[in-house]
């Protein structure tokens, strides 16, 4: 399948630190792709580069053939890329429904004066937006929680609400930053199923950063491994699990010479 996102030689520096170093990266359309790597490997920085939070220093990123690396975050969102955050960043003091409605901002066009006058157009637009928000709320299993403040929702519900808010922008590519962080194995399983549903039912391409190896290995069609800002491996889950450089990055030098069999076991143990 044709790639929906192509990143070429992307480099991002913070002063003297090279956070992302000349990374080439592609996401095939309607696939589920993961980026993994030890802490501080530059995964979230790479996410930020894609969504326009940080301008890249070298290289290019294009989305469906359009160069996006010079665009503002809101322009990139309009093209169809949306994201969630590692530490949930909901609008904590707005209700669940309001959070989703903010996500629909892109599709609402009423200028301020017609909002003041309350023209039929505006009222129609608002009514549809509300219906759509309600639908999304149901989609993420938060039916009836619409009037609750985001901050008062339980942790798992907050994660789902954040995804619903991201979905409200009607993305073609959804970036999930550690969606299963803080979840127990059962919740992680539900999440895996949910992410699959997003792809299968809504046709959204998914890119995720994840630490839970069970989730990563169970769901990804393609995995890229970053370490110290550099891409050290990519391939299918099976290929990654047996790649000596990956094992080295995760378990430290020496692990690779210990004998593949042994290391493999340890890797999986840690991952599980």
């Amino acid at each position: 399948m044709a790639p929906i996102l192509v990143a070429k030689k992307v480099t991002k520096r913070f002063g003297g630190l090279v956070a992302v170093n000349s990374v080439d990266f592609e996401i095939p359309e309607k696939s589920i792709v993961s980026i993994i790597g030890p802490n501080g490997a530059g995964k979230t920085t790479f996410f930020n580069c894609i969504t326009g939070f940080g301008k890249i220093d070298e290289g290019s990123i294009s989305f469906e053939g359009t160069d996006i690396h010079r665009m503002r975050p809101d322009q990139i969102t309009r093209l169809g890329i949306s994201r969630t955050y590692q530490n949930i960043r909901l609008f904590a003091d707005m209700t669940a429904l309001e959070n989703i409605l903010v996500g629909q901002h892109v599709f609402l066009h009423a200028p301020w004066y017609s909002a003041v006058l309350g023209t039929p157009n505006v009222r129609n637009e608002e009514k549809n937006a509300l219906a759509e928000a309600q639908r999304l709320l149901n989609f993420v299993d938060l039916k009836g929680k619409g009037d609750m403040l985001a901050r008062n929702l339980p942790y798992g519900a907050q994660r789902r609400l954040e995804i619903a808010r991201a979905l409200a922008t009607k993305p073609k590519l959804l970036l999930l930053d550690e969606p299963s962080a803080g979840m127990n194995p059962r919740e992680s399983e539900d999440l895996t199923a949910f992410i699959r549903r997003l792809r299968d039912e809504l046709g959204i391409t998914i890119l995720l950063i994840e630490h839970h190896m069970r989730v990563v290995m169970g769901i990804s069609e393609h995995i890229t491994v970053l370490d110290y800002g550099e891409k050290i491996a990519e391939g299918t889950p099976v290929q990654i699990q047996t790649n000596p450089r990956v094992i080295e990055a995760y378990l430290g030098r020496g692990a690779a010479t210990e004998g593949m069999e042994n290391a493999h076991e340890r890797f999986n143990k840690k991952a599980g």
Partner: protein
Amino acid sequence: MKKENFIWAAAKIGLLGGVISIFLTLIGMVEVFDKRDVVEKIITLGMFLPVAVSFTAGFLASKRTSDLFGENKILFNLLSGLIAGLFTGLLLMFLVMFGTSVNLRAVFLNASPTLFKLLTFGKESGGETLLVLYGAVIGLIGGGFHLLPTMIRRPLTRAIFFLIFMALFSGLFRVVMINQGESASKLAKYLFGQTGMTLNGALIFFFGVVLVSVLWDSQGQKVQTRVATMPKSGQLTLRVLVILLIAYIALGLPLVSGPFIAQVIVIISLYILMGLGLNITLGFAGLLDLGFVAFYAIGAYTVGLLTSYGPFGLQHVSFWIAVPIAVLVAMMFGAILGLPVLGVRGDYLAIATLGFGEIVRLLAGSDFLAKFFGGPQGVIGIQKPCLGILEAFVKTDVPRVCGGIELAKPQDIYYLAVVSAILIAFIAWRLRESRLGRAWMAIREDEDVAEALGINLVQTKLLAYMLGAAFAGLGGAIFTVLVGSIFASSMQLIVSINVVALIIVGGMGSIPGVIVGAITLIGLPELLREVSEFRFLLYGTTLIIMMLAKPEGLWPSQSAKRELHHADADNVAAETA
């Protein structure tokens, strides 16, 4: 941990109270307030201050004692109150003794013999001891007050506060009532004296409030549930009635209050107008704009230059044409000034806008631009608004004749301001409920995330900024016709600060909060002329107390309530879940 000795705790509270008493005395508050009676011939507002301090000290000491013991121990409570009161009196006594033997006036201008005479009750000798004795007795009463059950204490507290309130505003009520005809006038003279309440009036108010308060405490719950269980239509009628009553008072007051109070009310209404404007910028979008006065000035000058029959009048259009132009010009300047700085965040924005306010004021008042804006002499001869046909321009320095109703009196301008305020409140309300309101709220909560959801930050912030500017311009326009002239020197930073402060005190983002805030922060100091000398002291104190005690404001918006009372919100959530 060893528990604090209650006597020591009481002494500390007493000393603190004493320091406050000395402070109030030395800044001259006691002496100035002495000219005002709370109850005629019995107690003046000035003497009321140290009494209130001793009483509060006694009360707090008694409360502390109960806290230390974990229960009320009547004897100890009274003792601690006595000690606290004693110390407040002692400190004042030291001040008097020190002040009468050494001349303090080189440093403390107010430490005059009159003051000390006042503090010693006009007695030649023995006055100091009396001061300590009174302090101790009042402290004892304060301590005992804490021991009263809430059921008795609460009505009494309310009655005391009501008395202070009535004393402060007795002049206002007197004037209003005297203008109401023979019988009301008689009643006014029965209740109020020249500078405070009469004894009869005070007693009536005191027992009246106690009675109402007791009734409310015992029956209020029932009334509330009655209202809550009323059918929808009934509730609506009730609400409409309340609104009508408020509207009747708000619209009728300037007609019966005489020119001075009418003037104050116009000023309040103008601040409400500007507060509603800044509320969009600051309250909704969270942009702290300290240069609000710039747009006020731009609106004022635009109307001035377009309508003045004085030497600086550029055009001679009617007020009704000039106002929309002024609003548009202010909005345009909002865009011009906003674009470069709206990328700046938080505190930096405040500093940048602070600069604008000053630049506009200095430019308007400068000799360099005096050809256009009149420099320090200002623009004068501004035509009053005319409902009807305005005579064509004849010649400079001659006001044109209005063939209809001329809005010349402050009362007339007041109605103009009220209509404008209602219009702005409506616009603000509609905007808040729209996609823009949500976008502003999102930006206020988390700018990065808002941007990542497709909100164009510059555009959205700029709109909030421009709308705020437009309403400030409208405020300036109305102010101009109220005064009939513009001087750059009246466009001070304090105007901007007033508007920000009234929004914060009233409740960020809350429309009724703006009204409450303007009445408290602008109206009260204008009405209480004795206070005006200590205006900034009270202003600062009020702000600090507000931030500590009620940071969400006097009439907070729903979302602010949520933000600042997470614990409560969580409880509610737990109940509904």
